[in-house]
């Protein structure tokens, strides 16, 4: 029997690939192609001389090198800190694990304006860390001052992206059968050798998948660089924004965008190929079966150290936000939360901040529906099939993450302008843009799981007399459903926190939570600042609740293992 007989015929795979392709074509490729055409052929004639001229400018080379170095270092550091945390979350039981896992997503969706202000408070001149150091070690203690530095950007990148590693790698890790590892240990292999030779090969595709998402996020990082970096530090994304939104120099913006998209696409194809080649079919096990309480003293200590580092990195900045939302001129209180419910003219929002919560939830639900449906289709087509078509679709789905938000936003403006597709000022555009950014998360949550479902299970079902459809329903569907829920949770959270694209879409007077926070922070006055922080805390709580709820759904239902 052919071991690699795919569970999906070519025809079905193509049929499944069509809706996501149409979506991406209409709402990503077409708008981007239009704005690029305006830049590349301003008079209707293609002018490639300017592209080459831009690419060979010394300042462009500087920017590209800085962008790559920043993203590379950030990704490596995120992996270094994220993999141990993923291991702990996958393999061990500890109090409040579920809540902690849900909370790890929160940083990931917080708008950069909010994170920026928390990090400025932590790393800036009035850092409580410095006060603590001075109090404990005296005046001679060196004062940390990281705002306006590359270090601050990298720390914020790690803060943002740890969740990607913990969830995508940890999700896979939790399903890897620990018995092979146990057997290796019994046979005398060291812990490190067991990891390297048994666990790592099974884990590698998920690590590459997660790392490529982190790299994409950091290579296109925008707000963090502007807020925390020194104005000297210009990334490709910041320069594209400047050339497009501020200078309206579309020829230069187009040349830089081509460079960015081309580089990202090549990277994605390579990563898709690597993941496909490295995928190992294995018997996945239920997460509850593979985790246990830490046993020996050393193991306990290790788990606690890793958890402590993760908590400090991820939760201290969040705690700062909570503290600031409660701090008022007359001491701590809930005044800022009360102001969320009033249409205070001083907040300058068109409605009460609370309405932004309702709007955001509606947009997130719509975006999750779109991204979940299309993402599942794409994931099946990509996961069950091999070859360039599957790889191409996979890379194409990831591409919006590696494309400048301002280019997509301005692309919408110049292309979706003809009825019945004049969506430029339609509310539909917001969930569509969010779905574009959420799609990769759905696909990336499902594909590794699809690839590692053991064909033999299905074959065994067939031997026992099940039809192919029934075999798929009994074997694949439950596993996929849960993987899809993980992806949907991510999609919901991504939509709740999405800021960049929403900001570049001209929209009628509905605002999402991040946009409301941004507007509040742009207004003078301590009251507005506290209200913005309170709204950020609401966003945090909503995200954590949404993720918890989805994880709870995931936890029920039949256990196939």
């Amino acid at each position, binding site marked *: 029997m052919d071991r690699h007989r795919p569970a999906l015929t070519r025809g079905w795979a193509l049929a499944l690939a069509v809706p996501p392709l149409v979506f991406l074509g209409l709402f990503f490729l077409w708008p981007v192609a239009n704005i690029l055409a305006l830049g590349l052929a301003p008079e209707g004639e293609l002018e490639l001389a300017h592209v080459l001229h831009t690419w060979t400018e010394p300042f462009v080379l500087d920017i590209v090198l800085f962008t790559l170095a920043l993203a590379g270092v950030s990704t490596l550091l995120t992996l270094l800190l994220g993999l141990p945390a993923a291991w702990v979350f996958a393999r061990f039981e500890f109090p409040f694990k579920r809540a902690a896992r849900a909370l790890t997503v929160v940083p990931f969706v917080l708008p950069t304006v909010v994170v920026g202000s928390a990090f*400025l408070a932590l790393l*800036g001149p009035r850092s409580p860390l410095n006060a603590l150091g001075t109090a404990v070690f005296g005046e001679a203690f060196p004062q940390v001052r990281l705002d306006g530095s590359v270090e601050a950007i990298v720390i914020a990148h790690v803060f943002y992206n740890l969740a990607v590693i913990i969830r995508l790698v940890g999700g896979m890790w939790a399903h890897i059968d620990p018995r092979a590892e146990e057997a290796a240990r019994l046979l005398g292999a060291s812990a490190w050798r067991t990891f390297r030779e048994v666990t790592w090969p099974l884990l590698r595709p998920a690590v590459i998948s997660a790392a490529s998402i982190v790299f994409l996020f950091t290579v296109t990082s925008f707000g963090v660089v502007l807020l925390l970096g020194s*104005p000297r530090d210009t990334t490709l994304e910041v320069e594209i924004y400047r050339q497009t*939104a*501020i200078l309206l120099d579309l020829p230069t913006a187009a040349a830089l965008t081509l460079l960015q998209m081309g580089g990202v696409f090549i990277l994605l194809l390579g990563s898709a190929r690597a993941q496909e080649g490295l995928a190992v079919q294995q018997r996945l096990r239920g997460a509850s079966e593979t985790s246990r309480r830490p046993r020996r003293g050393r193991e306990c200590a290790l788990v606690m150290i890793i958890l402590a580092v993760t908590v400090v990195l991820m939760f201290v900045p969040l705690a700062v936000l909570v503290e600031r939302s409660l701090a008022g001129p007359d001491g701590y209180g809930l005044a800022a939360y009360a102001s969320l419910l009033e249409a205070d003219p001083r907040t300058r929002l068109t409605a009460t901040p609370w309405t932004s919560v309702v709007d955001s939830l509606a947009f997130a639900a719509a975006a999750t529906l779109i991204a979940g449906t299309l993402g599942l289709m794409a994931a099946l087509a990509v996961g069950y099939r091999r070859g360039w078509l599957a790889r191409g679709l996979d890379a194409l789905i990831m591409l919006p993450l590696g494309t400048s938000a301002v280019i997509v936003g301005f692309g919408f*403006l110049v292309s979706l302008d003809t009825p019945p597709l004049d969506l430029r000022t339609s509310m539909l555009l917001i969930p569509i843009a969010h779905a574009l950014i959420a799609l990769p998360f759905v696909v990336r949550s499902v594909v590794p799981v699809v690839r590692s479902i053991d064909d033999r299970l299905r074959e065994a079902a067939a031997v026992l007399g099940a039809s192919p459809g029934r075999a798929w329903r009994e074997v694949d569907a439950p596993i996929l459903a849960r993987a899809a829920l993980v992806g949907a949770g991510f999609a919901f959270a991504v939509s709740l926190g999405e800021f960049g694209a929403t900001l*570049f879409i*001209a929209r009628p007077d509905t605002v999402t939570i991040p946009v409301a926070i941004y507007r509040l922070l*742009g207004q*003078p006055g301590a009251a507005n600042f506290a209200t913005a922080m309170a709204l950020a805390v609401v966003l945090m709580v909503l995200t954590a609740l949404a993720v918890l709820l989805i994880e709870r759904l995931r936890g029920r239902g039949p256990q196939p293992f």
Partner: protein
Amino acid sequence: MVRSRIAAGLGAGLLAASALPVAAEEATLTLMTHDSFFLPEGAIETFEADHGVDVQLLQAGDAGSMVNQAILTADRPLADVLFGVDNTFLSRALAADIFEPYVSPALAAVPAELQLDPAGRVTPMDYGDVCLNVDRAALEAEGLPWPESLEDLAAPALADRLVVQNPATSSPGLAFLLATVAYFGEDGWADYWAALRENGVTVSSGWEEAYYGQFSGGAGEGERPIVVSYASSPAAEVLYGPDPGAEVSPTAAIESGCFRQVEFAGILKGTPQPELAGALIDHLLSPEVQAEFPLAMFVYPARSDVALPDAFVQHALVPASPLSLDPDVIDANREAWISEWIDIVLR
């Protein structure tokens, strides 16, 4: 089963798309503005009631991004009226020919020096001054003099005290750069910035980071006592501070070195309802609505016959002779000045 769901999805999508043009057929007028636009409840509603029209607000990023969006969509405008193009971006908007000329009868009450387009394509709405702000308490505690001129900022006494915004990414940052060009001339501003750099100036990417993050006065949490902000910021500190009735603001705006920003509104070419668009401009320029501008947006109304709120009279500054530059000169040199500034101050 999968197929039927796709069909249902597509059906729902088409239904939603086809519903849109129907909604657009109601009498609506779209007002495109920047993100800082705000008017209190009632200001727009009276216009809607008077003209039986629904005014849609379209907030499209900061002023520069909004103008660029309007230029990109000139063939199929996103809105009927654009509010908030300022004198630093005016020439670009006029060169792109996106406005329909309109002379509002209310212009009679607007001083001539604010009417920067003789062809009447844009109507002045408000103005504000970008000025240096100081932290009164911090300067007094350190026994430092208040800066009385731009030159003082480069003096050793005020070393490491100033925070400015990057003109490449910030509107007040650009205004302050233009102030130095206007004050020192096209030959002198570069040397001045080299001296500021020597004297330890700090650069933030935007107003929020500079004011809240680096400035020590008022709501600021930083440690620098001098910041580039607005002439109205001291009034905002009192109104939004712990004591809205305070006699003295914790911060003060400095008279010298202010740069005037004038904001305009215009009718976008291609609007199917130019009369209604003109009526909205008249409405925004009416004494009642103009009186709302100071507290709503912390700017001064373009009309000279509108009484100012007490907090403005008491705490805000109207510089007697603010610096300014011809919009055409700004437009011709903006990018070159910014690039040169980056080389001098940041590289």
